[in-house]
């Protein structure tokens, strides 16, 4: 075994990885996909349960959570991260879409954390000039080192969600509880006391390809699924060409490799956290 080959990155093999939305998987009997460059077969059984088989045909550990199927190529040391809001009875939970993107998982997470691109990439939705300033916010590693947390993020958004009728300064919380998954909390446009939750769960197909799953867990009993999905897909499809044009497609972990602006406090913390966890898959390692 070649220890410098990132596919043998045991930390990553031992994680739970998302393999698609249950709603989509239930619509087909068998489905082959790839995880960390390896073939994985999903076999639907009675009662909408699934067997997940590795490349040698052995059954992998798997579970259903947040409307998605998850599996591990190794032995997960911990349960899948918690999103307590998902189980609140009045939440609308749905998969906005699963999109294939030609980029590494860490690049996609980093872009998701970065508010600086809103006015330029999501013009008239999540940002608009001249409101380009990223105000200072707090970033820390929490949960015994298992999670990056950014709080007090604020940004002026002309159209923050499918129900927003006017622009306002939106408050955000970002969680990165998994190297390839992030959870965003965003002040709800109607009920100021509640937060909408948007999960970005990336299936690392290989080092430079992901399937990006977007969970929406919203306080919204008015909009149709179609409207809610359309808004989120519009936003994500604006990011897609940006992601696919990153050079390199893998995320450089060397602190000197890219000079992140001050607004990128969460990006600096995320990269350092990946380094400390020993995550290499989808990254360009820091030189010694």
């Amino acid at each position, binding site marked *: 075994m070649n220890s410098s080959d990132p596919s043998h990155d045991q930390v990553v093999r031992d994680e739970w990885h998302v393999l698609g*939305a249950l*709603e*989509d998987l239930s619509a087909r009997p068998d489905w082959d996909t790839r995880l960390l460059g390896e073939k994985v077969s999903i076999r639907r059984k009675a009662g909408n349960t699934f067997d997940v088989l590795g490349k040698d045909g052995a059954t992998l550990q798997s579970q259903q959570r947040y409307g998605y199927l998850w599996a591990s190529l190794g032995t997960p040391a911990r349960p899948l991260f918690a999103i307590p809001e998902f189980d609140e009875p009045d939440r609308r939970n749905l*998969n906005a*879409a*699963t*999109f*294939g*993107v*030609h980029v590494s998982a860490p690049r996609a997470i980093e872009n998701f954390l970065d508010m600086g691109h809103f006015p*330029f990439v999501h013009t008239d939705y999540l940002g608009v000039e001249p409101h380009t300033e990223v105000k200072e916010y707090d970033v820390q590693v929490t949960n015994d080192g298992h999670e990056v947390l950014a709080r007090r993020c604020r940004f002026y958004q002309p159209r923050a969600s499918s129900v927003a009728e006017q622009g306002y300064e939106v408050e955000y919380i970002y969680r990165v509880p998994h190297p390839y998954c992030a959870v965003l909390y965003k002040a709800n446009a109607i009920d100021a006391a509640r937060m909408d939750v948007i999960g970005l769960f990336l299936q690392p197909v290989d080092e430079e390809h992901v*399937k990006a799953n977007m969970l929406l867990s919203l306080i919204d009993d008015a909009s149709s*699924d*179609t*409207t809610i*999905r*359309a808004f989120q*897909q*519009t*936003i*994500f*499809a*604006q990011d*897609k*060409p*940006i992601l*696919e*044009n990153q050079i390199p497609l893998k995320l450089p972990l060397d602190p000197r490799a890219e000079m992140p602006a001050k607004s990128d406090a969460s990006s600096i913390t995320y990269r350092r956290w990946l380094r400390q966890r020993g995550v290499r898959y989808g990254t360009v390692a820091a030189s010694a």
Partner: protein
Amino acid sequence: MITLYDYELSGNCYKLRLLMSILGVKFTPRPVDFYPGREHKSEAFLRLNPLGQVPVLDDGGLILRDAQAILVYLASKYDPSGRWYPREDAALLGRIAMWLAFADQITATASAARLHDGVFYELDIDKARAGAHALFRILDEHFWFAEQTGDQWICTRDHPTIADIACFPYVMLSEEGGIPRLPYPAIRRWTDRVKRVPGFVVMSGIFPTGEAV
């Protein structure tokens, strides 16, 4: 009243949003859950379009399918200048129809490749990409010769036609299907011209001219 059965990420729907924006035609989008919902294959939608495809346009009860057909209709009805679809010039009409058909071939290749990469359609991806490159070579060469004689647009000199609108979206979105446009400089000059047409609007995945991508 015009209703467009619309999916934001569809380049074929975008053709119509683009022309209606340029012509200043008001319409109501009726979002279709194309993906992942497959609403275009639902019984209700198949009654509207038995082909199970978006876009569909409803103009006061007149139901039309096929982006190219709808471009012909919209330009004929709502462009008082008559320049987007000049109806008096038989030769020009023939050439426009030829490039409208070409646009549908771009859908069958470049758009198919994008659906394969982005939403996992099962198809022969190498064949789709090779087909798109073959079309792009033809289009690039066409523009190179057109520019020699001062023609700016697919069929015309100074003012674009619906042929330009029909070919534009899936050329611009080709990279999402793994089809680079670097080898086609004349195509790139033309897409920049389209972006400067008054009333031009973007869709997700296409940026206004002068920006990063």
